[in-house]
């Protein structure tokens, strides 16, 4: 039996993200926590959830213990409903077939913009990161859920570089830039669940995980966060959720 009282931060992330998915949705998922969370949701409350991969896969069957190392390898195609070109699968986002884009993030700012390209000045970068991959396309064209560790250096006022657009500079700036659809829907961290103000498009606390305080969240965030006075508290991961999750990733590749 799994230990129901203790769980890792990654396990918490996976469980909390999985609960945001609804049955019948079509979800464009990255590997790691997003794929785990989507597969978990499929096994528990969303039997009719469809997963898509950037490599060009619709509706694969994820085998417990054999998680794909990236979305571009054949392991992702196992018993899928359809395999198609990687430009074509991204065009499904542009056409509007996808309900949710679901990815991890390295650095996010108060308007939900993500950076995976540069640390420091892009003209003379301290660190050149791997870049956008499909991230820019997904976040430009779909409602987004982002799952990431909550650390002050990751939650910054302004990202060094907007790789994947959230709400840009807030307000209507996203729409004005030519992105009329999609946008950041939820950010899930090991401390809580975050949304964005309808008008200002600034990040705000929607819910805190059990035992976490607003102060603790603010301490770990590089910009001021507003919170409703009656902010919700999430229900702790259930034994069934943890059990199912640990069956999917027995070697704890993504949930250590």
């Amino acid at each position, binding site marked *: 039996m799994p230990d129901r009282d203790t769980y890792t931060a990654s396990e918490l992330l996976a469980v909390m993200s999985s609960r945001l998915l609804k049955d019948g949705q079509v979800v464009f998922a990255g590997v790691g926590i997003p794929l785990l969370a989507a597969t978990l949701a499929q096994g528990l409350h969303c039997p009719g959830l469809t997963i898509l991969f950037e490599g060009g896969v619709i509706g694969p069957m994820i085998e417990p213990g054999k998680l794909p190392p990236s979305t571009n390898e054949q392991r992702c195609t*196992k018993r899928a409903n359809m395999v198609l070109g990687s430009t074509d699968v991204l065009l499904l986002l*542009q056409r509007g077939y996808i309900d949710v884009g679901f990815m991890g993030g390295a650095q996010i700012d108060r308007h939900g913009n993500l950076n995976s390209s540069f640390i420091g000045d892009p003209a003379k970068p301290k660190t050149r990161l791997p870049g956008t991959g499909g991230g*820019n396309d997904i976040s430009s064209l779909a409602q987004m859920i982002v799952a990431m560790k909550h650390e002050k250096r990751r939650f910054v006022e302004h990202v060094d570089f907007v790789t994947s657009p959230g709400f840009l500079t807030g307000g209507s700036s996203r729409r004005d830039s030519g992105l009329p659809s999609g946008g950041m829907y939820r950010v899930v961290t090991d401390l809580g669940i975050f949304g964005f103000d309808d008008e200002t498009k600034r990040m705000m606390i929607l819910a805190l995980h059990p035992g976490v305080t607003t102060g603790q969240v603010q301490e770990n965030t590089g910009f001021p966060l507003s919170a409703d006075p009656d902010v919700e508290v999430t229900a702790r991961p259930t034994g069934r959720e943890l059990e199912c999750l640990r069956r999917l990733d027995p070697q704890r590749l993504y949930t250590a």
Partner: protein
Amino acid sequence: MSETYLELRRKLAERDRSLHEKVMSLEAAAGLVKDGETVGIGGSTLSRTPMAMIWALIRAGRKRLTCARSITSSEGDWLFGSGACDRVITSWFSQGIVWGISKVMRHHVETGKARFDEWSHMSVGLRFKAGAMGVPFLPVRSMLGSDVLRQRPEPREIDCPFTGEKLLLVPALNPDVALIHVQRCDPYGNAQMDGLPFMDADLAMAANRVILTTERIVSNDQIRRAPDHTKIPFFAVEAVVEVPFGCAPHECGGIYEPLYDHMDYYTSLVNKDPVGGMKEYLDRYVYGPKTWVEYLNLLGLGPLLDAALRGRSIANA
């Protein structure tokens, strides 16, 4: 200024597009790529990477290549580290998510030794598609508003003449040559691919010529039995090279998975010391062996058979 279009057409028009055999060695095929050319690379990340062909290009001493690929993995390290390539056009460049950031990429880009032009994944694909279609651009609804776009001088933002909405136009990318690895093709270059197709069909038609490597050459008769499975027509192809395990240590769908242990060894070696480690790897695995089979021998028969077993098990599920 339709010279560009006419020039593109001229390059195809002057090639021999008749149905003729074009089977040759890796070395002969490497001789078809010239220094300074733009090279489109098929597959994505660890999948159907034309590794043997890249290996041959590095051994042939190619220089100043610009390489374009949807997602760049360790073959990008090889190309930067060997000095064969000084510019990459891609959406993502690292050995693979599980190995973190490529220190070889970082070393070359951060010191200015090489360029990494970042585009969104779909934009790379649409640039190949525009090239394949013979049009100068295609419209897209991503990259807008982001710093990825701000870094790129090539695209144009427009107000749509039909709807008034803002759109981005990304320019066609027509590589001088495309390197594509397939599961099977005939001696004329009619190529059939299984599993993930990535951007390879568009890349092939966009390029001025295609060098195919293939796990096996089959008869034209076999191709003609299922012409609806042919994804690249012979008249786009300049060379056909038969190279079993031609993607190792990466994978070829339905035939073998990646050699993960070798990838672990490789990334730890080069990321520890992106200059010395890279040189050590290249000396041992690229310049050392005299043939691709000798290279495969260094990877080891056991790991190759294990990779093949894993690859077949997915296709047969």
